[in-house]
């Protein structure tokens, strides 16, 4: 099983698409790095490909209708390939959040959504998944346009995973079980797992549709209604799938989508007195603000999925070529814009030099360019702010005397493309080893024994994920248990199945998304206790 995973993961990371989230393709996708030019002669400066999709939905989805913001204001969403405007999108603010919460409240309190049978809810979610598949090309094109991720990745991995996640949660809808519970006396006790109510959900820009699925899937399966705020960088695809949900038969008001900014729309959702639950994915700093707003308002429970500085540990007995490829993939996938990116690559001293050489060679081969172009492995960073931030960290790496093995500069002169960058001789106290860069910057560090690497890997405020590369079962078991991280991938990385829970230790967040664990975020547990007369047994 593990071997199969690794091989499929490897082949998919060799391929241009890096379809990390699906295992059904990629085995014959070796065309990427061979057919297309390397980043040094990148096509980024060439003519930009026009996406074959219309932007049809730019207004807030409230109570089943697409509406303008109450203020009438809009904001531009930009193409990260060029910095040009794709469309002007309604700018939701407190008043719009109020309207959306009201609609969600009504849809929850009066129904029909939570009053439908679970089987009926699951049928609607299954129909939605079918529609996603039907519209996968438009969705992938829109996602690439707004986000800059490669079209192949969106089309062959993320959109299929979107459908797959909703099928997964459709299957849960009619299997959410409470318990009958033993009592210390003559009582009959049952727990009811009730929907929690109106869920506020704030999603990031790095995987707009997948984050939509991670949040909306379990909330709907459990019978909740939703106000979702999309990231201001990537508002487009959520509206599109919102429309598909209406088409699938989701009653109005069950899923409301408000585009806008964090400080306005996001803050009013987090502090709303009529929102029963909040879920946020994004930076640790924003997560702190969100938790504070929840505490200051109605103490709504909060699920947080935040930043990371995940270690990727390569032991001396590892298959070095595989480890190099996976470490590369773990960091550079999605332009390095992954919360679980393997951004601290710890390599055992006996294989360190070989590893660094090969990691550099692999990064030099990485193909950067227009994400709509076939064979491209890396598109632009999301926006100028992120671009500047990444460049700042690269400078910091150089200034702190890490060895810049390759990269370090911009690609082309338009948009936000950055060269795949590898630093070696990185020390734990350098900024690039401590902060979440969220860009294509790999830091390689040297270690000499297991105890040391466990200590150093855990010496971070984050605890989202980790990779362990070894053939030794004892090392694998011991390190898996010792790492303080919500996910440990052994001889693989970024395996994101629907059923595998994901979430952080420490300041990487709280709660788990995906898998059976994610349902807990959207359920209240009610104990019902009744006396028993003359029971046959207790």
């Amino acid at each position, binding site marked *: 099983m593990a071997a199969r995973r690794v091989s499929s993961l490897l082949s998919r990371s060799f391929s241009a698409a890096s379809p990390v989230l699906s295992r059904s393709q990629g085995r014959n996708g070796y065309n990427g790095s061979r057919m297309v030019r390397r980043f040094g002669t990148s096509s980024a400066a060439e003519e930009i490909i026009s996406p074959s999709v219309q932007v049809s939905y730019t207004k807030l989805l409230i109570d089943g209708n697409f509406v303008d913001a109450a203020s009438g204001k809009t904001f531009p969403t930009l193409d990260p390939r060029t910095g040009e405007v794709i469309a002007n999108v309604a700018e939701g603010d407190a008043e719009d959040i109020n309207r959306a919460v009201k609609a969600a409240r009504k849809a929850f309190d009066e129904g029909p959504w939570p009053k439908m049978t679970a089987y009926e809810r699951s049928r609607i979610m299954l129909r939605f998944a079918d529609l996603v598949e039907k519209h996968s090309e438009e969705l992938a094109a829109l996602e690439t346009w707004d986000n800059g991720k490669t079209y192949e990745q969106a089309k062959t991995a993320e959109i299929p995973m979107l459908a797959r996640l909703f099928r997964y949660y459709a299957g849960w809808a009619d299997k959410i079980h409470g318990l009958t519970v033993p009592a210390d006396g003559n009582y009959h006790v049952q727990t009811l797992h009730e929907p929690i109510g109106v869920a506020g959900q704030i999603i990031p820009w790095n995987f707009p549709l997948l984050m939509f699925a991670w949040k909306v899937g379990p909330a709907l399966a459990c019978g909740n209604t939703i106000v979702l705020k999309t990231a201001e960088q990537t508002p487009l695809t959520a509206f599109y799938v919102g429309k598909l949900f209406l088409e699938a038969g989701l009653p109005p008001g069950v899923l409301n989508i408000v585009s806008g900014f964090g400080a306005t729309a996001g803050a009013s959702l987090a502090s709303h007195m009529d929102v029963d639950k909040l879920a946020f994915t994004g930076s640790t700093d924003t997560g702190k603000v969100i938790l504070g707003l929840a505490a200051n308002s109605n103490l709504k429970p909060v699920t947080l999925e935040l930043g990371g500085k995940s270690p990727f540990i390569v032991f001396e007995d590892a298959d070095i070529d595989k480890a190099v490829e996976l470490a590369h993939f773990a960091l550079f996938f999605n332009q390095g814009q992954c919360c679980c990116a393997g951004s601290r690559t710890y390599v055992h001293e006996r294989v360190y030099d070989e590893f660094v050489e090969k990691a550099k060679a692999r990064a030099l081969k990485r193909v950067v360019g227009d994400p709509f172009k076939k064979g491209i492995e890396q598109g632009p960073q999301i926006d100028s702010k992120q671009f500047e931030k990444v460049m700042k960290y690269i400078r910091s790496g150089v200034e702190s005397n890490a060895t810049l093995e390759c990269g370090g500069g911009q690609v082309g002169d338009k948009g936000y493309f950055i060269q795949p960058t590898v630093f070696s001789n990185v020390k734990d106290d350098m900024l690039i080893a401590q902060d979440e860069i969220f860009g294509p910057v790999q830091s390689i560090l040297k270690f000499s024994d297991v105890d040391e690497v466990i200590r150093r890997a855990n010496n971070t405020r984050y605890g989202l994920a980790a990779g362990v590369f070894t053939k030794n079962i004892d090392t694998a078991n*011991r390190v898996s248990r010792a790492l303080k991280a919500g996910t440990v991938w052994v001889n693989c990385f970024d395996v994101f199945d629907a059923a595998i829970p994901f979430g952080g230790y420490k300041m990487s967040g709280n709660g788990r998304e995906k898998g059976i664990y994610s349902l807990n975020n959207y359920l209240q547990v009610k104990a019902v206790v009744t006396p*028993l*007369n003359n029971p046959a*047994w207790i």
Partner: protein
Amino acid sequence: MENGKCNGGATAKLPEIKFTKLFINGKFVDAASGKTFETIDPRNGEVIAKIAEGDKEDVDLAVNAARHAFDHGPWPRMTGFERARIINKYTDLIEQNIEELAALDAIDGGKLFQMGKVGDIPAATGHFRYYAGAADKIHGETLRMTRPSLFGYTLKEPIGVVGHIIPWNFPSIMYAMKVAPALAAGCTMVVKPAEQTPLSALFYAHLSKEAGFPDGVINVVTGFGPTAGAAIASHMDIDKVSFTGSTDVGRTIMQAAAASNLKKVSLELGGKSPLLIFDDADVNKAADLALLGCFYNKGEICVASSRVFVQEGIYDKVVEKMVEKAKDWTVGDPFDSTSRQGPQVDKKQFEKILSYIEHGKNEGATLLTGGNAIGDKGYYIEPTIFADVTEDMKIYKDEIFGPVMSLMKFKTVEEGIKCANNTKYGLAAGIVSQNVDVINTVSRSIKAGVIWVNCYFAFDLDSPYGGYKMSGNCRESGMDALDSYLQVKSIAMPLHNSPWL
């Protein structure tokens, strides 16, 4: 007609019979012997079609195909989600063929055509969708080992090749209830439908091919119990047999399993389920539930409420109401939408039921209504109610599997519980009362796998169902059903220097 209005023969469009051969390894084939048997229309006793008569040799071929599909094929090696996609496709195809499937069960089993369309076939698709959703939710556990240096976990593995032997009373639902969880678990299988109702199973086999199941995953062998059924139960290469039917045959199956390879056995057998109506019940509703519970599907249902106990304070009123309502219980052609009851499945059942009615009369029970066959063609019987039935009578003790109700009076809650449990069976029970204390006490006291409170036949996809005592040894429906098709494997290994245990 004294009771049970009988409507005339309806002229519904009868289904064309397209599939009559065994389905083995993805192909429809004749029986190795070349033999066939007749499947009969219970409305008139006429032959519908000749069906391939599978025997040991055919079962061997089917098991070989299933074995190969399990040991070497893609099915158990697919992800749960990939299996789910195919099961969902299968479900969509079944849904597109509801009319035809309902018609096949109606003509073959005498089942109401309308009920098939709105009840049986949608229930079958529900099972398939439910277990498609379960296929990627089969979890083992990581363990909290008590020894200091061990790490352990469990894997839930598909059990292997499964033999399913299904009855004739709900051909479609029983097919789905057994096949769907086994598919989700990753098993391959040989299905033997009842010789009375082979038609829909063969149609389901045809649809399975269209849905894209790999060859050998689902095989259907039509034939008789003592030949084909026995070959499955005693096959050395079948890992698990699942049977729904009578308690006597269940015992034979278990013996065959014991005498061969000790294969695991799931049995869902007979019942003599009590319905307890307490003094505080709504008379009208209680009478409706009692009639439905006993006469639904012409009493050919293992959970039939064939013993109705009424508390003395309300007894006379309930009896009066039931007799009145029984007269409106229309018996007639199952293709007629006004019919509530079609013919019994075959001559043998028909004669068995009439003989029980004679026993009831001879043993001194009071016949309140019914008691006769209807018409001179086919196997129609009047809804029949006996009062003053005592615990020593045959109609109190035996599963009749026909529209015959035994009515008894009881005084206290304790007596009601005692009466309800006074049976070798323990499949289901009904309670009609508004009193929460009575309901809670009685629910826990009755030895039965399913308790329906102020309802009956409240089957649900998510609700497990099965018997205590001689009603069987497994649970079907719900997530519990998966356990019948899974092996639990524990894995342990040394663990060094773990920071926690």
